[in-house]
């Protein structure tokens, strides 16, 4: 039920469930909106580093413990995605504002409550590709870095795809750890794997065609699995 005319809320708001708290929030007047922003900023400063003015890994750890979520939990990554955070382990004020506004959270409690819905939002197929590629970019810590080492990739895979495609991820991680051809994975290969999980039948790989434009590493992966199976 919308009563107010001022739409100071961010455009990020998606069709949400019938949470009455949300409705109330949305129907708040402009003054309330400003208040909200203030609270968001305050929350930011409660975690940020004094000298740098941004939230650093330490701050994020505090945030996580307050949210009662492991800092390796995928939901933090999702929050970072919502914020469009650029640097792994750091949140700037801009990013913080963007994220929390979109989540309609100005307190820790609200933020925590927003997490399940955020998860649903991310898991929608239309968003997931974006999230998946974001996850990769987020791990590129050095400037001009284009690939991620195998160890980190394995962790990232588990984190991001482990629940959705457990068997494929499991096998692929095994393969990555045993093979010697590749020491790093690039974006093209990363995205290829997601497509692979979605399109290729498992565990027989019947519709996999090596002559098509699959990244070479996946050709080798399929060969490896097939030789293991026989």
């Amino acid at each position, binding site marked *: 039920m919308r009563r107010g005319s001022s739409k100071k809320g961010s455009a990020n708001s998606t069709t949400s469930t019938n949470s009455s708290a949300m409705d109330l929030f949305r129907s708040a007047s402009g003054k309330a909106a400003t208040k909200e922003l203030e609270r968001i900023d305050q929350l930011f400063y409660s975690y940020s580093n004094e000298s740098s003015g941004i939230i650093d890994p330490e701050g994020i750890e505090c945030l996580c413990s307050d949210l009662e979520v492991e800092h390796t939990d995928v939901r933090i990554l999702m929050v970072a995605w919502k914020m469009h955070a650029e640097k792994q382990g750091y949140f700037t004020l801009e990013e913080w504002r963007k994220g929390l506004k979109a989540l309609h959270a100005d307190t820790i409690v609200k933020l925590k409550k927003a997490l399940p819905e955020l998860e649903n939002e991310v898991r929608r197929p239309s968003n997931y590709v974006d999230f998946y590629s974001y996850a990769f970019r987020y791990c590129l810590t050095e400037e001009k870095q*284009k690939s991620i080492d195998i160890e980190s990739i394995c962790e990232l895979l588990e984190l991001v795809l482990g629940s959705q495609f457990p068997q494929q991820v499991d096998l692929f991680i095994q393969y990555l750890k045993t093979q010697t051809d590749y020491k790093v994975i690039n974006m*093209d*290969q990363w995205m290829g794997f997601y*497509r692979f999980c979605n399109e290729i039948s498992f565990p027989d790989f019947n519709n996999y065609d090596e*002559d*098509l*434009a699959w*990244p*070479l590493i996946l*050709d080798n992966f399929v060969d490896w699995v097939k030789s293991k199976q026989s």
Partner: protein
Amino acid sequence: MSSQKKRNFQIEAFKHRVVVDPKYAEKTWKILEHAIHEIYNHNASGLSFEELYRNAYNMVLHKFGEKLYSGLVSTMTSHLKEIAVSIEASQGALFLEELDRKWTEHNKALQMIRDILMYMDRTFIPSTHKTPVHELGLNLWRDNIVHSIKIQMRLKDRLLELVQRERGSEVINRGLMRNVVKMLMDLGSLVYQEEFEKPFLVVSADFYRGESQQFIESCDCGDYLKKAEKRLNEEIERVSHYLDARSEVKITNVVEKEMIESQMTRLVHMENSGLVNMLMDDKYDDLGRMYHLFRRVPNGLSLIRDVMTTHIRETGKQLVTDPERLKDPVDFVQHLLDEKDKHDKIIHLSFNNDKMFQNSLNSSFEHFINLNTRSPEFISLFVDDKLRKGLKGVSEEDVETILDKVMMLFRYLQEKDVFEKYYKQHLAKRLLSNKSVSEDAERSLILKLKTECGYQFTSKLEGMFTDMKTSDDTMQGFYAAVGHELGDGPTLGVHVLTTGSWPTQLTTTCNLPPEILTVCDKFKTYYLGTHNGRRLSWQTNMGSADIKATFNKGQKHELNVSTYQMCVLMLFNNGDGLSYTEIEQATGIPTVDLKRCLQSLACAKGKNVLRKEPMSKDIGEDDTFFFNDKFTSKFYKVKIGTVVAQKESEPEKQETRQRVEEDRKPQIEAAIVRIMKARRVLDHNNIVAEVTKQLQSRFLPNPVVIKKRIESLIEREFLERDKDDRKLYRYLA
């Protein structure tokens, strides 16, 4: 309006009432009937042609054509029936003779009768659509004689019997056969076919079926083919002598089918005498016969081609995988050339230069030559051998022939870039050791390679020749300018090689003896003085030296050695009994090369200017070396240096292969970029196909390698994958 009626005057035909004697027709007919009898009884001479003609004419005129005609039919029929009886009565061989005689008589009679009845033939018959006299005569003969029950079967049997006898090498009366067969032909092609041709073909088929079975059991392939050819020729001759020409193709088809087509597989694969044996033993006649016979039947030639191809591929494969053969590359390549020559000759002499056979031969060679990955290296070694000594004293024409043959082998290679690499290495050695037998021959081959592969392929090779020439000029200039300063020092000869044109060598360390260093430095100064901005580095692993050495009894020898060897030997001017370590330290030569160098100086028979302790075969790091006072040789000049091109050792081969693979990567990438730049968007399979096509004149790219290059280009942001269709790639400008 009144119209004047015109009255037409009609003039009517004058109707002449002729009172015809009712008996007139009968009377006239009787005259004619009598005449026919007489004609058949050979009594025609007493008849008057004019009178008879007039009588017939009158009958027709007076509307008695019908009576005349039917009378003719019945008279002729009754005569023919008599004739039939007489023919039927003949016995044995006389049967056909009687038939023939009576036929001839009948024709004569028919002619006369026709002449007499010509008016009827021209007027009454056409208007009543009856059969003309001549044709009528033939039809009546057919119906009453040929189709007479007692004659029909006998005629057929007799004719076929005679043919069979002739096939059994008996002599028969061909003239009689011809006449009788012609009779059937004259009666109409249907009669010929029914009464003779059809049964003839059936009987012949049975006969040849049996004969082919008999021959195939008892003859070898060559003999069988001779027999089949003989039979075929016989039938053709038979037709020309006494059958209808149109029967030729039918009877030859029968022979082809029964004797060739049904047995051809068995013939080709016959043990000890089949196609493969003929090929191996160069049986040109037999092969030619097989070719011409099999050409006549469907799939005959393709059968020969297939078996030949399989055979060549098999022998080729054995040749290229036989370790004994592979020990001597020059011999190996010579064998390849011999095999090609042999089969070329067969195709030329026996297979009519058939293009399809030529193609099969080429594709077979291409197939098995590429089974051995060392083929490019070996072919280059063969060329090297020829250009060093093999072409000595050979006429210009013959040189061209040999080089053309080499080019032919070159065309079969899939990995032409590997050949190029080896060729360059071997050429470098030839040039630097001045071992080429003829510069014209070298140039000629390079020209052929250029024509085949384009300028890119040979530009560096030509650069090598240029460097050699330029070096000569440089040396002249050097001695002219600085010669007076050199005094008694060693005479220096320098080849200045442009990096990039020559095979890449790693620069190695080597401490040159002081005398050499002096003169080398002088050269360097001179050269850099005239060529600004260049850098020179001495390639001590490629040079050679001539040293004069004096041995125990005062004998002097001139030793031709490599630069490394020279450095080692010069050490012995200042000391003897040098240890390996001392030598190593003094010369600075890398271990592998030093060991090889010492081995050739101390362990080779007839060339051991050094003595080694202990006397073992290999060079050990604890060995000590002495100047071999007791060295003898019957030659004044002794050659010890080894700069000859040799078959690569295993590790060298791996290295070359690796370098080739590395060189291929940028070429593949360049091809991909070229293609994508032109096409903008292209799917994976098409890129692979296009790249393969573009590079096929140099090598066959591995699709996996192409894929890897594409991914590398994606990473470097030259290309991207299409967002919607994942099979497509997009060029990023």
